[in-house]
């Protein structure tokens, strides 16, 4: 997160990172955690990262929660660009960035989630069932 987006590690200092299968969950580290650890749990914290092939991808939720601390790989888009992404079209942008994920922002710093930047074009990584359907109807 620091290398790609410039989100300082210190932003995660108050959290624990838990691994379950191919996902990592972020949960607030508190004095209560050890005492509740024996409870039967279905899930702990927010799914923050998941392994996709050989890569570890941040989830939309963790980007929406921590993306405001990012200092690079951010892209402000407008409504027309968003609608194009939601139609699964790629948008052309001129960024001095290595290929990889970018944080998509609309309006006054409202973080939508991630796009994938490859050779000057961005494709949507936004959750289909929510943002896409809402915006297209």
């Amino acid at each position: 997160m620091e290398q790609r987006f410039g989100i300082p590690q210190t932003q995660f200092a108050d959290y624990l990172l838990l691994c379950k299968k191919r996902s990592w969950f972020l949960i607030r580290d508190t004095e209560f955690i050890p005492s509740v650890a024996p409870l039967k749990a279905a899930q702990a914290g927010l799914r923050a990262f998941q392994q996709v092939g050989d890569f570890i991808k941040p989830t939309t939720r963790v980007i929406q929660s921590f993306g405001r601390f990012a200092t690079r790989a951010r892209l402000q888009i407008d409504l027309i660009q968003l609608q194009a992404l939601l139609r699964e079209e790629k948008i052309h942008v001129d960024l001095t960035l290595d290929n990889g994920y970018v944080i998509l922002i609309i309006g006054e710093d409202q973080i939508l989630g991630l796009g994938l930047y490859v050779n000057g074009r961005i494709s949507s990584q936004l959750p289909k069932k929510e943002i896409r359907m809402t915006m297209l109807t």
Partner: protein
Amino acid sequence: MGYIHPQALTSAVAALVLSPQENSSVLDMCAAPGGKSSHCADIMNNTGLIISNDLYASRHASLGHTLARMGVLNAVITVYQAQEFPLRNRFDFILADVPCSCEGKFRKTGETASCKAFTGRETLPDLQKKILLRAFDLLKKGGRMLYSTCTYNPSENEAVVDLLLNERNADLFPIDVEFDGEPGLTHWNGETYDKRLERTVRFYPHRIDSVGFFMASIGRRG
């Protein structure tokens, strides 16, 4: 994106009445679909810990989805029957928003037909009493809990809280909200309840244009 989460007015008031503090421990005994747990997390500024409990795996998807969409970073989803939640931990704040006959929603959803046909409501008061007693036993000294339903039936409301007052060293606290509520009943259908039940609140749809609701703010006596 979690900027907005629609709730009935009375449902939204539940977490406000409970008012969990930052860095505290919270147990939401019947948490799905997660609106009140998320609201608690927001009030707590995502600090401390919320145990969002719900027995049914079929409800965990909606619960997990709500918590994730709202960016909740301080919750653990557990899978116990509320009335059998393990006693090894104690909590600063507990929300017992229990299964009920949902009479308060009928005006909104027009479910009067299903109200007549609804079976199983006879067993609800017994379940509610067990959940409330267990919730109280899980409460820290100095802690605060909220018992709530979205129904009018005194057997599921005042009678349940009355049993708690009789069987545990519990007390009721006044509930101060900025819209019309009516005090809980102290007698109904030939039964007389503890006078402190007047500190509970009933909300009626025709007064507040929302879902009917009952709330009792509970702590340990003394």
